[in-house]
């Protein structure tokens, strides 16, 4: 394998990783606030179709991405209403959200099957993008790839350096104590859930507008669930989320290119790799219960009612 083969593989790894970065950073915020939203897959799909629909109608990718994020947020709002206001079980509601998102996106999307949009293009930065090797590896990605890294830095800073971030962590650990100090626990959790929804929606829109600029039913193919697994893999730390997302991006791309390298494994088995990798990674992280106990937000997934 030479550099000419390697560069596109590395570059497409970044593309494959980016939706995972958005979706899992979003879910990470939700979980740090103590809420478990298993509806990522559904929110991504709804974001994908909303983004694609708006982009193909208006011709504006920007509007498409905004619509994707808004659609994800709308579903997240529904989740928040059920779990935070109506106190429904978070696991059941999250599953419902995923099933609903799959159904809804298929329903809305039937009119968009077969249509195409002009996908998001890589940036062309004068001089830098044209550099050999470094250009295609660092300076030719689309704007959302760079934005995902900005998001990572911003979240790292937010969670560890700001009072609001401290509050999110506090609410995730003990909503009772936060309530006793007079903080609006439910409102804070709503904001986190909405943020997670927007990020999932954006991740979905990235799939349908940048990676494969078209709509295919259930096109996320389990990426929403992988994003959830990444948060566990990352032990709820943003930098490890990014690391994990890039690892998974690599696995996804490798299986696409494997046949090009003359690997004679049936494609179905190669396609299993990301799912098997998810399981293996979960086993490695969860093997020692203390790793999870030490890092998982204490109130994750638990019902909380502020009382009278």
């Amino acid at each position, binding site marked *: 394998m030479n550099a000419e083969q390697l560069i596109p593989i590395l570059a497409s790894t970044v593309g494959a990783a980016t939706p995972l970065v958005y979706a899992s950073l979003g879910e990470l915020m939700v979980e740090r606030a103590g809420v478990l939203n*298993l509806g990522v897959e559904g929110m991504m799909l709804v974001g994908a179709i909303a983004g694609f629909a708006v982009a193909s109608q208006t011709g504006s990718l920007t509007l498409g991405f905004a619509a994707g994020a808004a659609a994800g947020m709308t579903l997240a709002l*529904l989740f928040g209403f*059920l779990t935070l206001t*109506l*106190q*429904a*079980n978070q*696991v*059941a*509601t999250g*599953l*419902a*959200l995923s*099933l*609903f*998102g*799959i*159904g*809804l996106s*298929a*329903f809305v999307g*039937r009119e968009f099957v077969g249509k195409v949009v002009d996908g998001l293009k890589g940036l062309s930065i004068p001089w830098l993008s044209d550099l050999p090797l470094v250009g295609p590896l660092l300076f030719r990605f689309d704007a959302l790839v760079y934005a995902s890294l900005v998001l990572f830095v911003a979240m790292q800073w937010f969670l560890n350096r700001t009072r609001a971030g401290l509050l999110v962590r506090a609410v995730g650990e003990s909503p009772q104590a936060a309530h006793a100090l007079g903080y609006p626990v439910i409102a804070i959790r709503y904001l986190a859930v909405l943020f997670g929804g927007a990020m999932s929606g954006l991740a979905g829109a990235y799939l349908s507008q940048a990676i494969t600029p078209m709509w295919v039913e259930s096109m996320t*193919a*389990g990426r929403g*669930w992988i994003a*959830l*697994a990444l948060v*566990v893999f990352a032990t709820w730390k943003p930098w490890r989320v990014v690391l994990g997302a890039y690892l998974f991006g690599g696995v996804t791309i490798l299986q696409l290119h494997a046949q090009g390298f003359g690997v004679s494994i*049936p494609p*179905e*088995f190669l*396609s*299993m790799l990301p*799912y*098997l990798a*998810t*399981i293996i990674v*979960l*086993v490695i992280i*969860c*093997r020692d*219960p203390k790793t*999870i106990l030490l890092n998982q937000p204490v109130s994750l997934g638990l019902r909380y*009612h502020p009382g*009278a």
Partner: protein
Amino acid sequence: MPRLEPRGEPSRAMSYASPVLAVALTLLSGYFLFSFLGKDPAQAFLVFFVKPLSTAYGIGELCLKATPLILCALGLALGFRANVWNIGAEGQLTIGAIVGGGMALWLHDVTNAWLLLPLMMVAGALGGMAWGAIPAFLRTRFNTNEILVSLMLVYVANLLLSWLVRGPWRDPQGYNFPQSPMFHDAALLPVLAQGIRTNIAFPVALLFAAVCWVFVAKAFAGFRFTVAGLAPAAASYAGFSAKRNIWLAFMIGGGAAGFAGVAEVAGPIGQLQPSISPGYGFAAIIVAFVGRLHPVGVVLASLLMSLLYIGGETAQIQMALPAAVTGVFQGILLFYLLAADLFIHFRLHWKRPRVATTHPTKEAT
């Protein structure tokens, strides 16, 4: 302003009423959805919910489609009662179909149905159990979240099936279509009556429901499940093994789903194809909740869900309604149910509670 007030005790009446309320609200939403799509709601309801039930064949189809739902949902419901979140019934169903169907292909020269069918059924159930054993083992041994593992295995199972019907098990006379040869007659489940497609898997599913009811209502093992679900710390205090519950839940759930899978391929499908289930394993999650995790409720909810599937197909043909509307209905139904469940634990108070007080004039603000 209405206010939510916690009830002293959960309301039993509400826990039965809330699925009914959810169904009613779903129908109401359907009314608006059909109107929005420019269809006459009355006609759509007729096509969706009445037409399929107007013929013996239709009722047969209802029971046929309800069968895998009943089987999968019963297994899931038992697990959910114990907080064991097996959501990979779809994968266990697929593996059941592969192993049971593989048995039919392998033993294609066995013509005795009394020998072959039980073998296939057992093989299918064992296949589903084996697939369920993976998340059970990883959860009990490595503390790994069973939701994500069982779900990932759905994708793996589907890819495995896809490889088999495109590769080693493809019908040589099948014009290169990705499907196995048709099963021979001895490998097909007998139908219950002429003119319908319902086969003996349906009474088996009902029998299984009865067994589950006994398990839940009478067996001490069922009590252990319920305690583990309601209060895990109390279960561990009482000495009920969490690992035993997890294994049992996955074995029952995997076995039932695997049986459902082989019943599909040995029933209405008759061969292995890349897709053997329109998402029964996922719909079963909704069925389990709508059925209140209770065996009788699960049977009723399965019939309802089956009607949604058939109605969706009829509506697609007769009214050009998209089939995906079924998926939307399923989601909406579950949302309403989760929302309505609020009233099991809370009640609405429309006014501030009136308090008899010796200082009625001092109203705090």
